[in-house]
C-alpha cells in the first residue's frame, strides 16, 4: 500500500468520528411499551368548554408517534379513519417511528424548526420539553372525558402541557401452581411485603432453581417502593432531594436483602442472562410485579395457572402508572386542529373502543362503560385489580433533569445490589451526586 493512500483513508476515518459519533444508537434495551407515568389524585383541571373543533377551512396537520410502531399501526389508522369521518376538514398525516430512533429524531426536528404539529412524548422527555418551552399550553382543550389522575401527570405547575394518550399500570402477577405446591394461600390486596417475603421463602424451598419474587433494582421500581414505605425522592415542593431518608433506606434495604440475604430473588449470575419475564414464564418464579402489557405474552407463554392482584404495600399502597403524553408543537400554526385530533385520539369513545379491542394499553378515560369491555377478557381472572390499583397511583418526581436523576439512582442501587456498597452508602452517594449535578427549580 502506498503511504499517501494510507494517510488519506485514515484522515477520512478520523473525520468520520465527530460527525458519526451519534448515529449508531440503537437503544434496543429500552422498553418499547411505555414509560413511567404518574399522577397525584388531586383536582381536575376541569376545563370543559373547548374552542378547538369547528375548523371551517380544510387543514392538514402532521402527527408523529412511536407507540403504534411494532404492531398497532393498523389500529391507529382505523382510529384516524373514524376521526376523519367525524372531522372531514382535518386531514392528519400520521408518521409512526420506531422507539429506538424516535427521540433522537424528534429532538433534531424540534431544534431544526421542523417538528410535527402534534406528537407523542414519554415521561422522561416530556418534562424536559415542557421546561424548554417547545410544547404548547393545552389548558384550553376539552379534558372532560379524561381520567383526572392520568391528566394530572402532564400538568406542570398548573399548566396542562400534554394529554395522556394511553395508560398502563403495574400489578402483582403470581404463579398459582407454585403457590399450591408450596402450600401457601394466594396473594390478595391485603398483603404487605412481609407476607410476600414469607410466601417467597416457601416457594424458594421448592428447589434450587426456584425463586419467590423478581422486582428489578432500578430507579423506576425504587421510587414506587419508597412511596410504599412512606418515602419520596424529593420534598413536597420539589426544592430538595430526599433520596437518603430513613423511609427510602428501609425500602431499598428490603429490595437488596431479597437478593443478598434471603436470595428469594436471583442475583444476576443466577439469572444467567435470562430476562425476568422469561423466568416467570419458565414456571420457576412465584411473583413478579410488572405491567399489564404482559397479559398477552403470559397468556401465550405460560403453561401454568396465573392471576394478578393489587401490588402489596408496606405502610401504604402505591402502584405504578405508565403513560405517554400527546403534545402540540408550540410553534405550530395549526394548534386548534392539532388539539382537536389529539383530544379525540386520547379520549373519544370510538378511539377508546378500538384501543381496547386491539389490546393496545388502556385509554386514559373516565367512561366506565367503555372500560368494562376490558374486564370481560381472561386470563387473568382478577382483571378488576387493574382498576383497583388506580386508587393507589404514585407520581414519579418529574423534574427537568429527570433522566439524569434516574440514571444516578439506578447506578447507585446497582452497586448496593451487588454488595459493593451498603444501601446507606449507595443512597448517600446518590443524594450527594444528584445535589451536585442537578439544579432544582
Amino acid at each position, binding site marked *: 500500500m502506498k503511504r499517501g493512500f494510507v494517510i488519506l483513508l*485514515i484522515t477520512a476515518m*478520523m473525520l468520520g*468520528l*465527530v460527525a458519526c459519533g*451519534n448515529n*449508531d*444508537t440503537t437503544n434496543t434495551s429500552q422498553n418499547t411499551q411505555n414509560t413511567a407515568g404518574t399522577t397525584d389524585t388531586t383536582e381536575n383541571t376541569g376545563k370543559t368548554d373547548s374552542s378547538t373543533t369547528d375548523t371551517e377551512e380544510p387543514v392538514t396537520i402532521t402527527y408523529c408517534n412511536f407507540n403504534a410502531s411494532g404492531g398497532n399501526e393498523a389500529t391507529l389508522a382505523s382510529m384516524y379513519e373514524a376521526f376523519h369521518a367525524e372531522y372531514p376538514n382535518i386531514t392528519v398525516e400520521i408518521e409512526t417511528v420506531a422507539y429506538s430512533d424516535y427521540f433522537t429524531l424528534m429532538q433534531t426536528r424540534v431544534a431544526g424548526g421542523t417538528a410535527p404539529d402534534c406528537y407523542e412524548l414519554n415521561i422522561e422527555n416530556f418534562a424536559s420539553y415542557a421546561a424548554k418551552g417547545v410544547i404548547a399550553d393545552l389548558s384550553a382543550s376539552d379534558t372532560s372525558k379524561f381520567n383526572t389522575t392520568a391528566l394530572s401527570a402532564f400538568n406542570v405547575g398548573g399548566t396542562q402541557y400534554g394529554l395522556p394518550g394511553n395508560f398502563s399500570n403495574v400489578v402483582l402477577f403470581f404463579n398459582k401452581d407454585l403457590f399450591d405446591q408450596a402450600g401457601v394461600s394466594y396473594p390478595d390486596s391485603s398483603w404487605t411485603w412481609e407476607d410476600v417475603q414469607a410466601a417467597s421463602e416457601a416457594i424458594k424451598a421448592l428447589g434450587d432453581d426456584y425463586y419467590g419474587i423478581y422486582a428489578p433494582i432500578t430507579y423506576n421500581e425504587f421510587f414506587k417502593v419508597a412511596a410504599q414505605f412512606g418515602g419520596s425522592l424529593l420534598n413536597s415542593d420539589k426544592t430538595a432531594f430526599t433520596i437518603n431518608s430513613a423511609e427510602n433506606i428501609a425500602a431499598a434495604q428490603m429490595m437488596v436483602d431479597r437478593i443478598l440475604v434471603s436470595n428469594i430473588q436471583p442475583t444476576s449470575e443466577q439469572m444467567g*442472562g435470562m430476562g425476568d419475564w422469561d423466568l416467570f414464564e419458565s414456571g420457576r418464579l412465584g411473583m413478579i410485579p410488572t405491567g399489564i402489557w404482559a397479559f398477552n405474552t403470559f397468556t401465550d407463554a405460560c403453561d401454568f395457572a396465573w392471576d394478578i392482584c393489587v401490588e402489596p404495600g408496606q405502610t401504604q399502597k402505591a402502584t405504578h402508572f405508565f403513560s405517554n403524553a400527546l403534545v402540540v408543537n408550540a410553534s405550530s400554526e395549526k394548534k386548534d386542529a392539532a388539539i382537536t385530533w389529539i383530544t379525540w385520539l386520547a379520549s373519544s369513545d370510538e378511539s377508546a373502543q378500538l384501543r381496547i379491542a386491539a389490546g393496545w394499553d388502556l385509554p386514559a378515560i373516565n367512561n366506565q362503560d367503555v372500560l368494562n369491555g376490558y374486564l370481560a377478557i381472561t386470563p387473568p381472572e382478577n382483571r378488576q385489580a387493574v382498576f383497583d390499583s388506580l386508587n393507589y397511583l404514585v407520581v414519579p418526581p418529574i423534574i427537568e433533569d429527570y433522566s*439524569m436523576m434516574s440514571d444516578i439512582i439506578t447506578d447507585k442501587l446497582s*452497586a448496593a445490589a451487588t454488595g459493593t456498597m451498603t444501601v446507606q452508602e449507595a443512597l448517600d452517594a446518590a443524594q450527594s451526586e444528584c445535589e451536585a449535578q442537578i439544579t432544582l427549580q
Partner: protein
Amino acid sequence: MKQSKWKSIPFLLPSLLGMVVLSLLPIAIAIVLSFTDWNGLDKLNLTTIRNEFVGFKNYISILGSAEFWQVLGHTVYYIVLYLPLAMLASMGIALLLNKGRKGTAFFRVIYYIPVLTSWVAASLIWKWVLSSKYGIINNLLALVGITGPAWLSSPVWAMPGIVLASVWKDMGFYGLFLLSGLTAINTTYYEAAKVDGAGKLTMFFKITLPLVTPTLFFCLIMSLINAFQLFPQVQIMTEGGPNGATRVVVERIYTYGFSYFKMGFASAYSWLLFLIIFILTLVQFKLQNGWVHYES
C-alpha cells in the same frame, strides 16, 4: 496530468458533496456548539449561540470530572485487550485463507458474515454465548473442569466478554485487508528464498511480515479509531454495567446529548475524543518508520 485531475471532479462531486454537507459541516458546527450550553431543543441560530456561549467551561468541567477519566480508562482497557487479539485473529485468518486450499472461497464468505451482521443481532447472540449458566463458552469450559466467570454480570469479566464479541465480529473485516496485502506480495521473493534454502518460519518473518506491514499499519490505525468509538455492543450487551464497569466515552456523548439535553457538553466530549484519537494517530505515524516497510 493536470487535465485529468479536473476531469475527475464530476465523478468525485456526489461523494464530496455528501461529505461536506453531512460530515464536515456538522463537525464544524460541533466545534462552535462545544463552547455553548445549547440544550439541543432550542432553535439553533446565531442568537442562540451568542446567548448560550460559555467559553471553555464545558472542556474544563469534563476534564475536571472523575467520570471522564473513568470512562476513558474503560475505553483504553477495551483497546488494550482488543487490538492485539483482533490483529492476531485477523492475521491468522488471512494466512489460512491465503494458502489456496480447497474451499477457501467458502471460508472467505464465512469469516466475512459477522462483519455484515448488525451489532444488534450479534450482541444479542453474544449475550447468550456469554451467559454464565446457559452459555456455550461456560458449558465448554465446564467440560474440562473449569468454572467459567459470570462474564457480563461481573465487573471484571464484562469488558473481556465484549472484547471477545468484538474480535469475532471484526476479524473478518481486517482479515480481508490483510489477505489482500498477502496476495500482493510478489512470489519471486519466496522462490528466491527457497533457492537459498530458507524455511517456512524464516520466510514468514523475513518476507511475509515485513511486506504486509503497510496493510497491518492501516488495519491497526483503523481498528484503534473504531475501538475508541465503541458503543452499540456495550449498549446492548451490558448498558454500561455492571456497576458502570463498561461505560465508555461514546455512550457518555450520546447520553449527554440526547438524554440529558446537554448538547454543548456532548459536543465538547466529542471533540476531546477526537483530539485523543488524533494525537494517538500522529504518534503511530511517527512510530511507523521503525517497523513499516513501504515497497516504493
